[in-house]
């Protein structure tokens, strides 16, 4: 039956395996280059910033003296901006994604919407900054506040959230949806009991990855005019504010001026005094840590929630 001898077959396999080995080696080299660059960057930052990485660094405001400068206002500002971003982007993005997947009929209108969402994700972030400057800062009068920054970044990550939501919904098998509809459920009942809970891990992952991107954004925040030097924190609700002694309202902080991590870093790197370079490196390392831990959280959440969802 077989026209080849055993030797020929073995030679053929050997040739095939040779190519396997070559490609494998090539792949490992490429991977190593990427990893090496990241390790070098992180390592370099760590070495240069190590002297500044102590607890005080986290609890001091920026100062004119490099050795006494800290990132307190920056990390608090970043967290608060992220909070506003998440609160604004998640409901909007999830609702839009659900609508597009579960309700919208497939026609040219939805096609155009789809293309636009994809394009939105590719718009340079500075353009969002310009848009926000016009709308949030001046037209709505939010000023150069945490609210403006949060909403700007929310716009920036909205496409990511929408796409993540849609992907998560698409991963739900049609038979689950049909199973629900077949017992007489409405579309909303199906979304409420099935689509939203089952797509939650995917949506959360998308949200966190979007936030991780937003936390590193500098350009739009600068555009709307975040301050680079802030030596105070936004007012904590129901405490006396420093300025006139009045009690702060629950949401007063959103209108407060602020700074964020990337701006603080940018500020330090542009100082003529080389001593600030260590500060910048240390802050960069902290920012890196924030992003990585957010991604880690996303992976962990997905793993935890997916355990109970299988079909």
């Amino acid at each position, binding site marked *: 039956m077989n026209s080849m001898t055993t030797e020929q077959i073995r030679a053929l396999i050997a040739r095939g395996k040779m190519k396997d080995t070559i490609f494998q080696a090539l792949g490992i080299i490429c991977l190593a280059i990427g990893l090496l660059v990241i390790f070098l960057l992180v390592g370099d930052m760590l070495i240069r910033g190590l002297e500044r990485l102590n607890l005080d660094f986290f609890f001091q405001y920026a100062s004119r003296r490099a050795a006494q400068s800290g990132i307190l206002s920056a990390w608090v500002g970043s967290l608060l901006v992220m909070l506003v971003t998440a609160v604004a982007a998640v409901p909007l993005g999830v609702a839009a994604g659900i609508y597009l997947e579960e309700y919208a009929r*497939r026609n040219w209108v939805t096609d155009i919407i789809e293309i636009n969402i994809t394009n939105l994700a590719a718009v340079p972030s500075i353009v969002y900054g310009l848009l926000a400057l016009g709308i949030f800062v001046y037209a709505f009068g939010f000023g150069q506040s945490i609210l403006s920054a949060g909403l700007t970044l929310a716009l920036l990550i909205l496409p990511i959230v929408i796409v993540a939501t849609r992907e998560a919904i698409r991963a739900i098998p049609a038979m689950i949806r*049909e199973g629900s509809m*077949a*017992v*007489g459920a409405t579309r909303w009942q199906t979304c409420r*009991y099935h689509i939203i809970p089952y797509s939650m891990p995917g949506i959360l992952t998308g949200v966190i990855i979007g936030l991780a991107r937003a936390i590193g954004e500098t350009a739009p925040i600068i555009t709307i005019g975040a301050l680079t030097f802030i030596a105070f924190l936004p007012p904590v609700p129901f405490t006396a504010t420093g300025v006139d002694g009045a009690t702060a309202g629950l949401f007063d902080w959103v209108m407060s001026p602020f700074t964020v991590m990337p701006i603080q870093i940018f500020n330090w790197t542009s100082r003529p005094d080389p001593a600030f370079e260590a500060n910048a490196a240390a802050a960069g390392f902290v920012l890196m840590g924030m992003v990585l831990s957010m991604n880690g959280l996303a992976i962990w959440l997905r793993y935890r929630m997916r355990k109970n*969802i*299988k*079909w």
Partner: protein
Amino acid sequence: MQIQENPALKAEARNLSFFYGNTQALKGINMPIHDKKVTALIGPSGCGKSTYLRSFNRMHDLYPGNRYEGEIRFFPDNTNLLSPEVDPIEVRMRIGMVFQKPNPFPKTIYENVAYGLRVRGERNKRTLDDKVEHALRGAAIWDEVKDRLQDLAPNLSGGQQQRLCIARALATDPELLLFDEPTSALDPIATGAIEELVHELKKRVTILIVTHNMQQAARVSDYTAYMYLGEMIEFGKTDEIFLKPNDKRTEDYITGRMG
């Protein structure tokens, strides 16, 4: 053709055609569904038997570009299931369905069965408990799951999952139960259990079952319809179809001959 309600009929397709866009998938089907009997639909892949089955609970309405012509009359109230005035959700509340692959929700066993009741607004815990138990008993799975109602349904075996899906459909007391190749993903033992169950169920519910397993059709059904290329070729008592079909195409199909 009988126009008046026939007490022996649960439903009747009258000149039913169905289109996916411009493709005609069903061609003028006329067929009675007898009350409290099992009717099997057989035919080669792509003959339209599943399409026909899914017309009964308007599953095609979930996807755009689908169109029905003709009627499916549902008795005793003589409703036309396909009428645009009839809400598909109303239809699905009266007609249950069991799918080809077991599709329990990734929720607890209890919630799977209670779902249809919750959708209908039932909140009373006692009522829910009673109906869930009743449905699980009806689907012959109560003894296997009564001690672990809070376990996740997808952890059950394939055969148990399918019986759970039957319980889910039974919980809301459907008048007609549609089975779309319910055992194609199951092993012979689990298949036997489902077939036995179908036989039990016909005491209280009318059943329409699509199967590509002819022996299964022969075993479980009272009436059999042979479909080919979107047409109903032959409908008759199962005993007669499997011993003495009238149409040569039916004969060729059930004896396993090439056309």
